[in-house]
């Protein structure tokens, strides 16, 4: 193994706890949220204990130090994806990041007194917005809303039986009418790693803005915004060892520059009069109100932890574990993998269904054995429908998991099969 899991585990106190009847906790739900190493908690606490203050505003030493902590966190997280600090907007989660992107279109398209909207963000009847059939609700519902409000039409790339995007249709689905292509980098339900570069290039060919939901890729592999070729990219801190309550939106400078404000208020303004206001340049324009300072600091500490492990080693570790799990799952009678069943261009999230046993019941057995997995539609309900299943069980591993964890999970599945006679 490329990662010393036992050593990593020492940094995650929660993994020492037991669940149910004194079972060792086997946490295989990192696609939902990752656990946090002590140094992330310590970075947050340290911030509060030593320099907590309002950033960008005060003229006292604490405020200087707090601002420095916040902006250093921005720089570190930007560098983590090959970007510069001025290109990184902090939000509360990836969902807000994606909504920020989506509202840029709605707000540019709805009449506005001061209306000199950037034409790249104006959409209306006849225009199309393209997503895929494997989007998380966070990258689907906001675009449905944009369409409902502007008259644009939503289109999507389908998914084949193996959980891969249907790309034969690419040039028909993304065509001259397309103004936005917003796609998930790695599916949180299927595990599929999508050929994002191809999709972004096609987006740019037709003059559309290209957006990537990188929630499930940034924590798990080396991602470089320039290699992806996207205009905007969204992800969350809590899935990459960071605290809850912090999300990121990276944007190409000229794209961010063209986006109108989303949430408005303090700190995002240039001047304010009773009857009108003007706005600051990005990223500030998109960070109204007191920001998530401690959370940014914590997320940066999480990124530092990952960098120390090395993102290539993280990816290789997960790849090995995923290969192990896929092989054994494929060998289990009555188990069907939903998503790519070979360990190629896919991540560590593995969804499956067990014949004759509902995912909720499978999950109950796993839980009873100490295994934390997620069951349900994983906020990708249309993807479940595509595969004709109401729900799946999903196990997803990370840097603190090893093959022994997978074994416990597989035993629990077998126990469920025995119990339900399936």
């Amino acid at each position, binding site marked *: 193994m490329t990662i010393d899991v036992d050593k990593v585990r020492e940094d995650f106190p929660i993994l020492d706890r037991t669940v*149910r*009847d004194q079972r060792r906790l086997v946490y295989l739900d990192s696609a939902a949220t990752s656990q946090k190493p002590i140094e992330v908690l310590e970075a947050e606490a340290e911030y509060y204990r030593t320099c907590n203050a309002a950033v960008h505003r005060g003229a006292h030493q604490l405020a200087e130090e707090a601002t420095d902590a916040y902006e250093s966190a921005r720089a570190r997280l930007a560098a983590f994806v090959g970007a510069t600090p001025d290109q990184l907007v902090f939000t509360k989660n990836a969902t807000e990041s994606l909504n920020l992107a989506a509202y840029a279109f709605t707000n540019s398209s709805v009449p506005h007194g001061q209306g000199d909207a950037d034409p790249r963000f104006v959409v209306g009847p006849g225009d199309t917005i393209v997503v895929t059939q494997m989007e998380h609700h966070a990258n689907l519902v906001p675009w449905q809303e944009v369409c409902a409000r502007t008259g644009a039409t939503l289109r999507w790339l389908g998914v084949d039986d193996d959980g891969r995007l249907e790309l034969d249709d690419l040039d028909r689905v993304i065509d001259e009418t397309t103004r936005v292509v917003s796609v998930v980098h790695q599916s949180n339900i299927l595990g599929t790693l999508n050929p994002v570069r191809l999709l972004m290039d096609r987006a740019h060919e037709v003059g559309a803005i290209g957006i990537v939901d990188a929630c499930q890729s940034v924590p798990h592999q080396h991602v470089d915004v320039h290699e992806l070729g996207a205009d905007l990219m969204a992800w969350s801190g809590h899935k990459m060892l960071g605290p809850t309550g912090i999300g990121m939106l990276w944007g190409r400078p000229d794209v961010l520059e063209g986006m109108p404000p989303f949430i408005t208020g303090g700190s995002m303004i240039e001047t304010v009069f009773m009857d009108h206001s003007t706005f600051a340049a990005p990223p500030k324009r998109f960070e109204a109100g007191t920001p998530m300072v401690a959370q940014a600091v914590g997320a940066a500490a999480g990124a530092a932890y990952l960098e120390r492990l090395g993102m290539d080693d993280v990816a290789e570790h997960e790849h090995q574990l995923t290969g192990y799990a896929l092989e054994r799952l494929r060998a289990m009678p009555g188990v069907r993998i939903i998503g790519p069943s070979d360990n190629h261009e896919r991540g560590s999230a593995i969804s499956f269904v067990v014949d004759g046993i*509902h*995912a*909720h*019941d499978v999950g*109950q*057995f796993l*839980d*009873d054995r100490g295994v934390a997995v997620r*069951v*349900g*539609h994983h906020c990708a*309900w249309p993807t*479940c429908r595509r595969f004709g299943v*109401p*729900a799946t069980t999903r196990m997803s591993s990370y840097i603190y998991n090893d093959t022994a964890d997978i074994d416990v999970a597989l035993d629990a599945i077998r126990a469920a099969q025995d*119990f*339900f006679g399936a």
Partner: protein
Amino acid sequence: MNVESMYQEIILDHYRNPRGRGLIEAPEGESHQVNPTCGDEVTVQVAMDREGHLHLGYEGQGCSISQASASVMAELAEGFDLATAEAARAAFMEMMRSKGDAEPDEDILGDAVAFVGVAKYPARIKCALLPWMALQDALVKSGAMKEGEK
């Protein structure tokens, strides 16, 4: 308590062999309930006969708990008058709120007492309640019960 004891034999039996599953002919009220976290679905239909007895139809898909709960409920409440149905629903709700410590009244709940162990698992309580919520909503829609009557 382990998981095997949550899945009482009665629950498994109703799950495998649902009683009276299917829709009825002239429903006076119908409700479709979904558990948005997992996609479990239950449709419950109601009609009252001239003697004031309740008749039920139902359909659904989902986990053992939600589907068995629908079957147990349909069998239990079939033929009940409104007050008895309401009493059963209230008793079931209370049992599910008990965190598994209740000693439910078998005279009122019949086979439904088997669900007491489910109350220990917050994520499954919704599953067990789904058909009962649909029943209440269907009764409101049929006009037999007023909204907010609980």
